[in-house]
Every structure is written in C-alpha cells, then in structure tokens.
C-alpha cells in the first residue's frame, strides 16, 4: 500500500508539500474552508497567501441569500455554534466582483456551491465552467425542495443523483463533494459520491448542535465547529478513507500543525482550516511549517508518503 503510494507520488512528480486532489494540483495541502475565509479576498492585508494551497469560497447560490437573523454565533467549550444560514452575494455578483480578484491571489480557487433544487446547482456548475473555474465543492448539507426538504447529504441516493447531474454539467474539471457528519453512515454517502463521479471529498461540515441561553431565555440552533469536533472529523476521515478511493480533504477543529498531521495520517490528502483561523490567522503558515518539519524529521521527499500511514488497512480498489 505504502509502496504503491510512493510510486504514485513519483509518477505525479509531486515534491515536498505538493498534493493532488483529482485533477487539481495544490502547492501545499492547506485548504481554507468554506465560510470561514469570506470570499478569500478579505485577508490580503493581514496574511501571506503563499502557505495556502487552495481557497474554498463562501458557499454561493444562484441568487443572493440573506441568511438568518441574529443571534448567529454562540461560543461553547472548545467550539463555536454558528447559524449564518448561507448568506451570500449570489452568482452574478460573485462572477463580477469576486472571481477576477480571487484569481490573482495565487492559491487554487475552489468555488463552493449550493441550491435548493438540482436545476439550481447544475446551473451554477455550468455558469462556473463557462467562466473557466477549475474546481467546485458541492455543499450538500442543504435541504432539497423536491425531496420533502430532505438534506441531500443524509441520503446516498439523493447524493448520487445530485452529484451525477452536476458531474455532467461540469465535465473534466475537479468536482468535490462536502460531506456532513450528521448521518448514521457517512462512508455510504461518500461511496455514492464516488460512484457518481466526484474527484474528491471534503469532510466534515459542522456538527448539528444547540446552545441554551437561560439568561435570555432563548436557544441557538446551528452547526458546531472548532476543536470540539476534531475527534468526529478524524473518525469520519478514517472510515471514509477505508471505503472509497478518492482523495480526501480532512477538516474539523484543526488549530495547529499537529492536528493537520493527525488528519493526514488517517487518510487526508489535504487539510482544511476553518474556524481555527479566527483565533489564529497565522495558522496556515504554522501548519506548513509543521508539515515541512515532519518531512525533515522523517527524511521523506513528499508529504504524500504520510497520507493514511496510520490507516493502512487495504482499501478496496
């Protein structure tokens, strides 16, 4: 297993921190997660973008969405509950105002998309293909209007249907599917996405959670992120890696280089930085430093050698 991966890294001529997610080649395995890095442009004056391999944009929809009313945030021990409600500028503004500037930043751009119907998602994919976008990430943690509002990510069948339609609308380029942990059996959804033609999987999205504010007599219902969900993310990556053959972008609670190495060791080819960036904007650089340090320590020529090292059970071919 390890040997075949070494051969693959040699074949792809990947050096040092380079990784491949389907057809997408990243200069480092550090991916800025959707919704926690704005549209990717906002941090130009604060940080160096060089350690970043790819930026996933805030999820965009065909038309702009206003999102949820306040309160949208609640801090928990080691985590954060958010209910932003996918507020976004919509496709047209994104194409006109954000995309041209995003492309000049350096990192690869992955556009996160969502919609309430498959037509809407396919329309987004076609438009983005027409604008020569290299990679899409399907946020399928969204209810589907035609399937009794069932969240696509909770059903292998709905996932298969949606991903195969979007695959047709976005041929030849990198198509990622973002998985939700709010499912009994995430690997079966992962398998459905693989069978439908996805090039890679991003996991995990936030974990369903609730906070109770007794003082103000209200509840805050949303998605939990941050260090509290790291064990959930690791377990999901570990299981999905065994079930599918796709490259994985692992995320959930990464706040230091060690966390990133843990995700890689159980099967992630790249790692996502989400809410950890809020407390430490220097995190992308710190993760890159830690990965380089690990290569130096082990004497390995490429980070790809570390992928899945602690999860070596034979994968199905």
């Amino acid at each position, binding site marked *: 297993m390890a040997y075949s991966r070494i051969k693959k890294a040699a074949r792809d001529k990947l050096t040092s921190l380079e990784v491949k997610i389907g057809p997408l080649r990243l200069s480092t395995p550090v991916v800025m997660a959707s919704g926690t890095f704005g549209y990717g442009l906002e941090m130009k004056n604060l940080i160096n973008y060089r350690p970043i391999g790819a930026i996933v944009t805030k999820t965009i929809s065909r038309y702009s969405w206003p999102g949820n009313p*306040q*309160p949208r*945030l609640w801090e928990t021990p*080691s985590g*954060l509950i958010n209910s932003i409600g996918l*507020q976004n500028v919509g496709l047209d503004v994104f194409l006109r105002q954000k995309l041209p500037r995003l492309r000049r930043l350096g990192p690869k751009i992955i556009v996160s998309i969502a919609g309430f119907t498959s037509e809407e998602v396919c329309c987004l994919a076609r438009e983005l293909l027409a604008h020569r976008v290299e990679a899409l990430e399907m946020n399928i943690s969204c209810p589907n209007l035609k399937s009794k509002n069932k969240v696509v990510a909770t059903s292998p069948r709905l996932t298969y249907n949606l991903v195969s339609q979007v695959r047709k609308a976005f041929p030849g380029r990198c198509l990622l599917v973002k998985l939700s942990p709010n499912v009994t059996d995430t690997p079966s959804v992962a398998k459905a996405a693989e069978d439908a033609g996805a090039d890679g999987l991003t996991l995990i999205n936030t974990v369903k959670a609730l906070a109770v504010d007794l003082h103000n007599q209200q509840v805050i219902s949303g998605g939990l992120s941050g260090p509290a969900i790291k064990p959930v993310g690791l377990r999901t990556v570990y299981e999905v890696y065994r079930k599918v053959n796709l490259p994985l972008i692992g995320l959930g609670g990464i706040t230091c280089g060690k966390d990133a190495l843990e995700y890689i060791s159980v099967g992630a080819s790249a790692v996502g930085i989400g809410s950890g960036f*809020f407390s430490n*904007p220097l995190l992308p650089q710190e993760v890159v430093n830690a990965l380089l340090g690990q290569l130096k320590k082990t004497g390995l020529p490429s980070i790809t050698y570390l992928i899945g090292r602690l999860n070596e059970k034979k994968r199905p071919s």
Partner: protein
Amino acid sequence: MEILSLKILRMQSLGPDHYWMELENRFKKAFSPGQFLTLRPSPHIFLRRPFSVASASKTSLGILFRKVGAATTILTEKNPGQEISALGPLGRGFPIDPEIKQSWLVAGGTGVAPLLFLLERLMKIQKVSFFYGAGCQPLLFRDLFPQGKYRLFLATDDGSCGIAGPVTALVEKQLQSGEKPEVIYSSGPLPMLQAMNTLGLKYKIPVYVSLEIRMACGLGLCLGCVIPLHQGSSIILKRVCHDGPIFLAREVLWKEITTFTRISNGL
C-alpha cells in the same frame, strides 16, 4: 491590520469589576477613535475577544474592560511584562467632519471607552460636551478623562454623583434648554443607544452609535456579526466588525436586533 504579540505595560483595577490595561503599541497603522482590536487572553479560550481602544499614543494603547465572563476574568489575572496576542486595527472609526464645530459625546457604563479616545481628538478642534452616566459613583471613572477644554455632565442611576437618572435624561434636558450640537456620538448599552436614536430623530441631530455584538472572526470573514440597516428605501446587510462598529443610529433596524439587545442587557 496586523497580528502581534504585545507586552502588557500596565494593569490597574478601576473599581468594581472594571480594569484599565495598557499594551505596548507596535502597530504600524494608527488606530482612530471607534476602532477596536481583538485579544486572545488564553489558548484555552477558542475565540478572540473584541475591545475598543480607549486611548492611543505612539507607544501605548489603553483598554478599559469589564469582567463579565471567562476571557475577561483571565485578562484580569494578567501582569505587566506578560505578552498577549492582539489583532488590529479593526473596523471603521467615528466619522469626523472637519466642518463641524460642536459635538456631544454620550457614554453609558463601559461604553465610555471609545468615547474617551474620541474626546482626546475632538476637544482640540471642536466645542465638545461629554455626557457620562453609570450605575453609581464608583463606576464613573473620572480619572481617565483628559485635561482640556470641554464640558462634562455626569449622571448616576442612584444619584451618588451628578444627577440621578439615566444619562439620556441629562441629554434631553440640555436639548430642551435650546442647545443643539451638530452631531452626537454615543456608546453604551443598547437601550441607551436606542433612546439616543429617538432623541436624534426628535431633535433632528445625526447620532452615531458604537454597536457591540458577538463576533467570531472580527475580520469580516464569518458573517456572524451581520445586522440589517435601512439604506434609502431598501434594507441592506452589514458586518458590524468590518463596516462598523460605528453606525448612523437612524439607519439601524433596532427591532430586528433585539435578540442582541437581550445579550447586551445580560451584561
């Protein structure tokens, strides 16, 4: 915008649960009054915390804070010489129109912080009146006020200093006497800011308010601090951290943000 590890120069208890902290100022960009920074008091607390800058010189930054929860409690335990991670300058400060000759500053409680910094600026170029209200005399931090030419009006809820009652009543009394500033700047608890908005509408004076809301990033990335605003006939969404925290009071949809009214009342 920069992220730096800054040395704490001074830490002083001001009164019940209130502290003054001075940090070395190594930020390349100068802060303007109304802007804020975020601090990370401990790696064990996940999110950074926003604080207004209450004074700024080339070498130091002053912060006035109130102990309300875990992060601010850890801040109180810091000592001079220790370092703390600071990120700023964030947000947009109070707009200052060079044409304006007379302004009023209206502060309630800990909300005095950004207005102390504004006072420092304005008293040199305008006729300034400062209205300051707090619960009781030990919570009126008069020592923090700069020397200079301005009028200071005080109010306490219990009447232990200045007039008894809310600071907004003091402002209204002055307005009724026929005096009228060209602009009002206000910072404090939400009900007070709402009352200032009502006064501004009644007396046709623009009121700028500094809003506090829960933030996750403070950088304009997460959309957690978004509030709706009136703009012309439409309603637009703005990020308090990036487009604020200073807003024109009459543009704020006060009813829509009542959920965070309750949050602030909880302080």
